[in-house]
């Protein structure tokens, strides 16, 4: 509060103060609004509608909760192939196929549901029957894809001489010179637990537990565990390791930084620093390390140590040494001198004074800060992992780059969010316990 002079005209001063406050209260929203208008123009928010790829968004959402079955026929040798997500591990064995397909020799009828039926007929002819549109026929004639569609084609058809793709709600048909392929979306993550090659695929949980032995060489539980854990498509083992790596990066970085920062913080604290010049130098080192920022440290370190989680752990370690150094030395500057005097009066040497006079006072603050950073570094480790190539961050960026593994992206996102929330509650619980329980300091 501005001091009001007792002798002056109090009323006038108060009115002036109120007037100024009113002006500020009005000016702040105006400034914020003006800034937002500037951002609106400089970020080109208007152009967003052009740039936004809503078809990408639809693929992403559809992919995230469903899986595609690829049904294809080769135009040269009439080979039929059925697979889930086009993956080798998801290929149906010879002679087997999903039950919504009827196979007759090299011909087949694919029922997409909702009265959408695709017939694969003789001589590379494929016909697509749908309710709101006349049947579309596609055939390979002299090396070109020919359809009975008249120009202009509907917007859900993308046609050229070498490739025609028809996208409907029920599924997608893509006809190229080499093959005709149908993609049918179904709900769920079909091979999340077991791939098609596993005998436990499509067997209910109870049947695996209590039903007859499905594989002669292994008991059901062992076999199911092995097949789940060794799932080549979802790579549960690798994902588990990547999560562990991410937590480990955060753990090593945070606690390593704390171990390094604690002794340095004594040198940087006003009341403990042996030499003023040294204190000043250590402080500048902390400021520098913090200022350089995790991103630059990550780049510098990955040049020296190569890609991998170690680089990430070291990057977190170095950045946080700066942050911890600063906050630890502030905590040390606020300790109560009486306790140290008390310990000193019993004849304690300097090291013992620190151990019994200082450390018990600052432990709760320090631990709570370390735990808070540990939690927040789990999140940072995801980002750093994406840059240095370690942990779940790498898996996430890899799955995103393929642009058609959105169900995996969803899975990783769920895992990351659960991991961070778990770290959050564990560190919160520990913080409450440590701060409350650590009253004696031993």
């Amino acid at each position, binding site marked *: 509060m501005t001091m009001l002079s007792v002798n002056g005209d109090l009323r006038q001063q108060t009115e002036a103060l109120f007037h100024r406050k009113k002006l500020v209260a009005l000016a702040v929203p105006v400034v914020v609004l003006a800034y937002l208008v500037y951002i609106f123009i400089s970020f080109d928010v208007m152009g967003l509608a052009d740039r936004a790829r809503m078809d990408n968004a639809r693929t*992403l959402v559809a992919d995230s909760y469903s899986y595609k079955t690829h049904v294809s026929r080769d135009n040269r040798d009439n080979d039929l192939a059925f697979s889930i997500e086009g993956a080798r591990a998801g290929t149906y064995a010879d002679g087997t196929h999903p039950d919504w397909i009827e196979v007759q020799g090299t011909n087949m009828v694919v029922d997409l549901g909702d009265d959408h039926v695709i017939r694969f007929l003789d001589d590379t002819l494929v016909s697509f029957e749908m309710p709101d549109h006349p049947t579309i026929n596609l055939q390979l004639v002299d090396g070109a894809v020919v359809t009975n569609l008249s120009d202009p084609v509907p917007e859900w058809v993308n046609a050229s001489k070498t490739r025609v793709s028809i996208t409907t709600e029920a599924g997608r048909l893509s006809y190229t010179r080499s093959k005709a392929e149908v993609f049918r979306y179904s709900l769920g993550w079909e091979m999340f637990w077991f791939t098609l090659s596993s005998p436990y695929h499509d067997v209910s949980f109870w049947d695996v537990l209590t039903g007859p032995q499905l594989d002669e060489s292994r008991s059901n539980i062992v076999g199911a565990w092995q097949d789940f854990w060794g799932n080549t498509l979802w790579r549960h083992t690798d994902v588990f390791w990547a999560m562990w790596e991410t937590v480990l990066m955060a753990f090593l970085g945070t606690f390593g930084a704390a171990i390094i920062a604690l002794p340095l913080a004594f040198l940087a604290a006003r009341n403990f620093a042996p030499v003023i010049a040294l204190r000043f130098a250590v402080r500048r080192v902390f400021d520098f390390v913090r*200022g350089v920022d*995790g991103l630059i440290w990550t780049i510098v370190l990955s040049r020296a140590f190569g890609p991998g*989680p170690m680089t990430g752990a070291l990057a977190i370690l170095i950045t946080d040494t700066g942050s911890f150094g600063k906050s630890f030395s502030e905590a040390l500057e606020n300790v109560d001198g009486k306790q140290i005097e008390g310990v000193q009066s019993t004849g304690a040497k300097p090291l013992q004074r620190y151990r019994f006079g200082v450390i018990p006072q600052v432990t709760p603050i320090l631990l709570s800060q370390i735990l808070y950073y540990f939690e927040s570094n789990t999140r940072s480790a*995801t980002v750093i992992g994406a840059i240095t190539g370690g942990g779940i961050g790498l898996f996430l960026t890899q799955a995103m780059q393929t642009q058609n593994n959105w169900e995996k992206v969803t899975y990783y996102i769920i895992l990351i969010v659960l991991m*961070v929330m778990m770290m959050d509650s564990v560190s919160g619980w520990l913080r409450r316990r440590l701060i409350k329980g650590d009253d004696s300091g031993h």
Partner: protein
Amino acid sequence: MADISATGNLGVHSTRDAYMAMTRRRRAYGAVLLAAFIFLMVTGFQTVEARSAGGFWDGLPQLFDFPAGVVTEAWAKIDRMPANLLRYFPALIETINIAAVSTLVGAFLGLVLSLLSTRGLARWPRLIPVFRRTMDIMRAFPEIVIALVLIFILGGGPIPAMIAIAVHTAGALGKLFSEVAENADLKPVEGLSSVGANWSQRMLLGVFPQVAPNYLSYTLMRFEINIRASAILGFVGAGGIGYELRNAMTFGTGKFDLAAAIFVLLFLTIVFFDQLSSHYRNRLVKGSGA
């Protein structure tokens, strides 16, 4: 005291024995914890090293090769430095803008969420758990996740980064804000409701003046963090100085003067906003000159 003198030496002994036993037990617990911690650190580091491309001791001597290379190259081309700094200045402004807008938007969202999820202030008390969970989930999303998904849909540029950081900021600030709001005095709120103020008036006039200094201080701290986050997100494709840095890094040797200029800009910016925000935070918390 009276007890000890009454029972004589025996009482002192038993008290001392009990104390010593307690101390020994605590020391034992402490030693076990310390051993477990050291074991975790050592094995953890070995695991991480084994899963990395290069070893720790192999890489350590090379640690300064890259910075030294950058510095020598930048020094050799020091005459180009001002031009390079100028060249990347717009990108820097974009990075700062991303951080500023996302802090503004995130703080506003966090403010609303925090008031909705604070006992005694909430508009719909039954929905408090819902809003709390929302904040937890928003906070748990690493920025990179949202940014990458949005880059796929909206294309590169500042907007995906802005949204990504704003979501996380709303969750993080919402939690801090609601901790402050829990300690707010409810009497002004009661007074306002007795004269017929509606919920938003009660919040704006009764709660907000009490919590504003703390809220502003937290928001400033978040702005500092968000500048770093926005630089990192640029590196994964969201525009700004981080994006330029990635490009400069791929140019490789011979173009390190560009990387050096970006390092300098980034460093100065972070230090500048660090100092600025800590200065104003000190003023806000100590209440001088408000």
